[in-house]
């Protein structure tokens, strides 16, 4: 109150301001914001770490070391008695790996009498050259007796070594590739015969115990069938159930019970759905094991609660004034819902469905129980045929011992993540597309 004295006439005096804690309030707000930013940064840091670890480990899976050499399709080896016209089995059972071995041995200058050298050469080529060369010959028997330039798959260990994944400082007895083979690798590379190529096999091949020939082709088809089944079944059933529950069902104890149960089902561990599918679809109804049909049905059961909850929320969010407007014009309840409410709820329904599908695409546990964790080398033609799924393939590869499967596991994770990203972007785009203001 010393101001009273200093100010002239005293009219300019303001009353002392009350302390209403302005500073404290702003401090609280700043603190809260800081918490938010910290939490977000923490989350982003871990996301970046995850992506970095997967991508840095996995990108090499999309490359494959190949040995490109002139291969002599020697009649002497394939069909020395010229029986191929009469015995169709002859071309199927011929000793093709010998041809490949000889071709590489020739390129390296290994003598035909050096048996240990030939064995070491043989270890450098993948066993899958058998089917590779056989397919070439069966498709075109004319090449017997000629020499063709062929890119042969290198063995998994050579592939790993060439990509620098095998530590060459370890003593020779304790590592998978010998010094001799390393020398040959460098020699072939200098001659331009050994190089890394794009590995289409990881996308298209089926299961294989040889990492260089293994791919997620079967798993992709299995996952595709399952997503199709889940979409076709769970979208109409889920949306219809939600419409009935939200718009038509009387509100009583029974519907309350159903609502509580649906919410609980969304939280049931997915492996329980696998047990249910095993008991009902496989054991009781006698459907085949390992089939994507059963997998699709199990995932449908698992996805339904998610879709129902999302759809009901979307229906609830449609303003009641729109319903009143339609009813007031004499539209029946059904017309009101299908002409006005459902189109407005569509963005929410589609988002919920795609999130549910993405969830189902990444689901592993229930599929293990219905036998989809299987070694399937051939493409399934129908959903009734045995197949695997992407996440299960990842799980199986993660259990393999070979060094080359480590990068392929990460490679398969990258493929799965790409599909999930595509689906989520699709959800966002659909949402934008259908979103309307009112």
């Amino acid at each position, binding site marked *: 109150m010393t101001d009273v004295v200093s100010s002239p006439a005293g009219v300019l005096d303001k009353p002392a301001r009350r302390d209403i804690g302005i500073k404290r309030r702003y401090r609280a707000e700043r603190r809260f914001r800081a918490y938010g930013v910290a939490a977000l940064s923490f989350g982003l840091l871990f996301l970046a770490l995850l992506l970095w670890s997967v991508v840095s480990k996995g990108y090499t899976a999309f490359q494959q070391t190949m040995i490109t050499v002139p291969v002599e399709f020697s009649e002497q080896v394939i069909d020395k008695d010229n029986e191929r016209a009469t015995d169709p089995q002859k071309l199927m059972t011929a000793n093709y790996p010998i041809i490949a071995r000889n071709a590489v041995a020739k390129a390296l200058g290994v003598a035909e009498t050096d048996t240990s050298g030939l064995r070491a050469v043989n270890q450098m080529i993948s066993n899958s050259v058998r089917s590779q060369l056989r397919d070439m010959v069966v498709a075109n028997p004319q090449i017997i007796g000629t020499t063709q330039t062929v890119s042969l798959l290198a063995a998994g260990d050579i592939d790993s070594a060439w990509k620098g994944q095998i530590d060459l400082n370890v003593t020779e007895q304790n590592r998978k590739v010998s010094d001799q083979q390393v020398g040959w690798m460098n020699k072939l590379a200098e001659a331009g015969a050994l190089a890394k190529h794009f590995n289409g096999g990881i996308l298209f091949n089926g299961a294989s115990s040889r990492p260089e020939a293994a791919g997620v082709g079967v798993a992709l088809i299995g996952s595709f069938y399952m997503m199709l089944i889940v979409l076709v079944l769970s979208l109409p059933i889920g949306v219809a159930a939600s419409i009935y529950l939200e718009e038509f069902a009387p509100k009583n104890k029974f519907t309350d019970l159903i609502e509580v149960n649906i919410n609980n089902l969304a939280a049931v561990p997915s492996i329980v759905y696998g047990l249910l599918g095993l008991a009902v679809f496989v054991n009781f109804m006698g459907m085949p094991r390992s089939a994507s049909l059963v997998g699709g049905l199990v995932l449908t059961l698992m996805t339904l609660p998610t879709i129902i909850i999302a759809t009901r929320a979307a229906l609830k969010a449609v*303003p009641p004034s729109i319903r009143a*407007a339609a009813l*007031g*014009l*004499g539209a029946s309840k059904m*017309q009101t819902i299908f*002409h006005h409410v459902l189109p407005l709820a569509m963005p929410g329904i589609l988002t919920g469905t795609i999130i549910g599908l993405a969830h189902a695409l990444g689901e592993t546990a229930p599929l293990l129980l219905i036998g989809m964790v299987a070694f399937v080398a051939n493409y399934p033609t129908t959903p009734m045929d045995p197949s695997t799924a992407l996440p299960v393939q990842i799980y199986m590869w993660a259990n393999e011992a070979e060094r080359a499967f480590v990068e392929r596991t990460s490679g398969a994770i990258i493929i799965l993540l790409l599909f999930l990203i595509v689906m989520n972007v699709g959800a966002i785009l659909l949402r934008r597309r259908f979103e309307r203001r009112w």
Partner: protein
Amino acid sequence: MNMMSEAAVEKALDKKMNDMSYKMIGNDVSVYYGEKRALFDVNLNVRENTVTALIGPSGCGKSTFLRTLNRMNDTIEGCRVTGKITLDNDDIYDKEIDVVELRARVGMVFQKPNPFPKSIYENIAYGPRIHGLAKNKADMDQIVEASLQRAGLWTEVKDRLHEGGTGLSGGQQQRLCIARAVAVSPEVILMDEPCSALDPIATAKVEELIHELRANYTIVIVTHSMQQAARVSQRTAMFHLGQLVEENDTDKMFTNPDDQRTQDYIMGRFG
């Protein structure tokens, strides 16, 4: 009608009104929301080609009564209506009467403008389409134009019929909603505080429109504004605590009401 002067039209309408031709008759109407009783034995008749205003303080049951007239209360869980309401001598709560048909005959305009999030054209065309009122596109175009003309909106929107109805101003939206109600050719139009979300200029336009619509429709309007009731209606009903206090000619109601409570409400002593 065009031959007659405006005053003559008014006079003819007033005569028709005083002939006591009741469009809708409410007999001992009571409404319960679950255990709670919202209306107590209301006896209120709605005259043909008349604007009937329902006034009263908030929560007095005037909106509830309005919504019984086209059974919009059916959509509220736990709502029960007793008594008898007739439309041209048909009991509208009879099992024989279909609620969809009833609502095609008794249209409704709501408090908040609620156009569909579609084009102006589609907003109007929806009602006629579901009731099969137009045989072809030309018919529909004509209905849309006539309805917009009636609602006094045609000149404002005729160049943008295919733009969104939600892009119009509040007052235009409300007139669009009136046009939408008119498009299905109802006999009665119910209006639940149609101007409460509008500014004075838009309100004036809607009131003028209500006045014009009287020639072809029977109108029941709920309003909080006593000036509005006095301006647009010929008959006024005053509700209080779920009971009908008084129903009278609007002129008499605002100058010399029979009931003390009406007097007090109009004078602003409560409510």
